[in-house]
């Protein structure tokens, strides 16, 4: 997030797109409701009627995958009414004129045809967002999990720059990160193209710095991303995989393709706290420790690095993931001799400018928001004040793009996927209380479709895509539009990613989990 979570209650308008915050990021959802209670306006853009949509001033029920057209349309309306922030555009940005030409191709009537959103609602949304004293954009995977995910995000950046809603309190472009430490895993360089702190592996100076620190020659070549790995495994270019705390068979799109890749490996090591579907395919399984059993840090979605403090010893014969990695490194002839995770953080701080002033002692009970360049620096509440990281903010002209696979005659329903409040990803079914509370998938189907297919509440149906099939119970609800089925990915018995499409965004290689074509069939 460019801005901080506790700035939310003071904002004047919220533009929430592709985000079901009250379920997927519940405490941010409560902060949004606190803002509403203080008079903030709320615009929700989502094909599903989420809980926030029910509380919104205007709910834009767009067709899945038409976000770029919608955002361009809103910018078109803002420009037509003179609601843009001229001073901000001139002083802080570049590339506006070219982008304006693209925006002009998206008049409200055309955008309404593409998105299915009435013109009046587009105007209302544009007005509420652009004329507020400060306004925050929030997005989640409804924006990024599309083949045009990166362009969706850039469109939102255009919208924020157009209205000067960056670099100040209670504004900004605020992605809500999914997992507890997905921000931190990125910050730490668990990515094939960057070292910790987003320092490029292809940059010779950076390479030299890490070679000097680690005392070995390093590769300047970007590595495989996850989708590359499964393809490389299938073609035998990849021989071994060390998989820590992930279950790609369940969480990656097109599970059968993933399984095939993993089965082609010569050697698969899985380090996990449960015997996951991926672990079941492994040659060696190592028992890791849960969050309660180790000390370290997580970085949250607002860049706050916070302590994770060990409360109990690892269960049974389990060991912390850090300890296991150090042991393997040492056995391979490169001793990793750290006395504690605090000592690892000292090395991180030495090599990572944005973490330069972070120590476990400084984090204490309140944490610090990066960038924290020096030991005296208090951390950074919001980004881009006065200046963007790259200098001027770059407007990018972007045209609407279609999803990779839309419903057709054979697979007439659009499958949308996401989370529900009572579960988190794929392992909370191991919590007895959450399992009792919410034991099974309840795919959402619109009453019109249910009637047409003769489906009853709680009926178990078969859902099929070009890639696989699953069985699931259904719930009949107007939360989903006609022609859509919504499923979560939390349940072992209804592994939704057997169905999803492996097509991905060209820049991030994020799969298009939010749109694919499926068929719903009665079983009985």
């Amino acid at each position, binding site marked *: 997030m460019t801005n901080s979570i506790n700035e939310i209650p003071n904002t004047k308008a919220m533009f929430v797109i592709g985000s079901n915050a009250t379920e997927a990021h519940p405490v941010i959802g409560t902060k949004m409701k606190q803002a509403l209670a203080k008079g903030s306006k709320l615009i929700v853009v989502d094909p599903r009627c989420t809980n926030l949509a029910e509380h919104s001033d205007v709910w834009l029920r767009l067709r899945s995958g038409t976000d770029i057209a919608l955002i361009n349309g809103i910018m078109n309306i803002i420009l037509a009414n003179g609601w843009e922030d001229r001073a901000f555009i001139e002083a802080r940005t570049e590339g506006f004129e070219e982008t304006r030409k693209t925006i002009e191709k998206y008049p409200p009537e055309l955008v309404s045809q593409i998105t299915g959103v009435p013109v009046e609602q587009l105007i209302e949304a544009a007005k509420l967002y652009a004329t507020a004293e400060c306004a925050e954009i929030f997005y989640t995977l409804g924006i990024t999990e599309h083949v045009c995910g990166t362009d969706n995000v850039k469109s939102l950046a255009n919208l924020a720059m157009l209205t000067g809603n960056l670099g100040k309190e209670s504004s900004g472009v605020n992605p809500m990160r999914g997992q507890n430490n997905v921000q931190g895993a990125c910050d730490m360089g668990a990515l094939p193209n960057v070292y910790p702190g987003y320092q490029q592996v292809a940059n010779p100076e950076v390479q030299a710095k890490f070679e000097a620190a680690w005392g070995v020659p390093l590769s300047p070549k970007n590595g495989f991303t996850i989708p590359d*790995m499964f393809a490389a495994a299938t073609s035998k270019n990849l021989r071994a995989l060390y998989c820590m705390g992930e279950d790609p068979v369940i969480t990656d799109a097109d599970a059968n393709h993933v399984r095939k890749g993993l089965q082609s490996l010569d050697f698969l090591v899985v380090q996990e706290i*449960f015997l996951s579907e991926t672990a079941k395919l492994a040659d060696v399984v190592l028992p890791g420790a*849960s969050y309660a059993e180790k000390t370290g840090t997580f970085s949250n979605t607002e860049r706050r690095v916070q302590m994770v403090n060990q409360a109990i010893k690892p269960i049974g014969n389990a060991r912390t993931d850090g300890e296991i990695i150090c042991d393997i490194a040492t056995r391979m002839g490169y001793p990793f001799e750290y006395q504690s995770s605090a000592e690892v953080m000292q090395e991180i701080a030495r090599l990572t400018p944005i973490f330069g002033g972070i120590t476990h002692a400084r984090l204490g009970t309140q944490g610090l928001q990066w960038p924290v360049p020096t030991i005296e620096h208090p951390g950074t509440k919001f980004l881009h004040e006065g200046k963007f990281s790259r200098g001027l903010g770059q407007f990018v002209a972007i045209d609407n793009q279609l999803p990779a696979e839309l419903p057709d005659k054979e697979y007439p329903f659009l499958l949308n996927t996401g989370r529900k409040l009572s579960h988190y990803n794929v392992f909370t079914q191991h919590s007895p209380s959450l399992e009792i509370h919410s034991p099974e998938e309840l795919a959402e189907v619109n009453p019109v479709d249910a009637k047409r297919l003769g489906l009853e509440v709680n009926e178990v149906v078969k859902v099929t895509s070009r890639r696989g099939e699953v069985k699931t119970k259904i719930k009949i609800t107007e939360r989903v539009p006609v022609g859509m089925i919504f499923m979560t990915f939390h349940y072992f018995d209804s592994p939704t990613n057997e169905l999803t499409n492996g097509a991905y965004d060209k820049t991030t290689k994020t799969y298009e989990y939010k749109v694919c074509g499926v068929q719903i069939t009665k079983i009985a």
Partner: protein
Amino acid sequence: MEWLTLTIDGREVSVLKGSTVLEACRRNDIPIPTLCHDPELTAGGACRLCVVQIEGMRNLPPSCVTQVTQGMKVETQNPKVRNARKTILELLVANHPLDCMTCQKMGNCSLAEFAYEYGVTGEIYQGERRNLPIDESNPFILRDPNKCILCGKCIKACSEIQGKSILDFSYRGFDAQVGPAFNVPYNESDCDFCGSCVSVCPVGALVEKQMVGKGHPWEITKVQTTCPFCGVGCNFDLNVKDGKVIGVTSNPEAPVNGKALCVKGRFGMDMIYSPHRLTTPLIRKDGVLVPAEWDEALDLIASKFGEIKKNYGPDSIAALSSAHCTNEENYLMQKFMRAVIGTNNVDHCART
């Protein structure tokens, strides 16, 4: 910012304009008992336990809703004030179950704490007792309306923190109680089970069901940590007794969330002790995963990685690091792949 000076129990103190008398006292370590007050919630002046005497005022005003004025003279502990508080406590205890020995809240109950301080035994007013059904309808929250003192904090937490407004008062007088609309059990209401109501309850009316019978506050060590269930980064306290996590409680100092949590953060910690946890390394032998010693498993991995690197080059090995693991562990994993294996083939589920 304008500062005001007032005198509390003969001591001169300065506070910001707009502060309440209660805030002035708390900031200066002057103890005032409260049951219905919480710094995260709007003040209601409901319980009246925080009454003080203020020169020039006719009655004893509740300090939580009385704003400081310049030159104000406050007395917090004189006999008149203490008697008034004692009477309030006597009335509350008159229909409060006194099964404290088996109450989950024992040792952490505000009513018991103040009854002890003010010598309230429950003998003065022998009134009628409530006998309402206990709500055990869900796996998370145990609700005993008989123990409720009607302070209203849970109602405010539900509306002001969580924005749900599931709870409210119903009925009048002696029959007054708090609950979801039409008095349905929690699981039949629209409750999210965030448990904010539990986190503010001053007595044993709302408790964490999983913690019942598992330990008393004085036996528990609280360890502040960061929630593992989404990117918001809520902090809470793991409650540990005899080396075992028995529950989660809010930590009011949590920088992101204060007392607020969601159903997963507050109640999903039982996942730690799932019988499905892996507790020993496994090695595939004759097609089957069988338990193994750590040394055998780690030696096998080191030798296989070494062999594959030698035969096919470092880029034939890849790692999936984890958005569930710590920063330090992710750092170690990427360093292992880059410096030990010699490849940049490291990624994690940020993109998937």
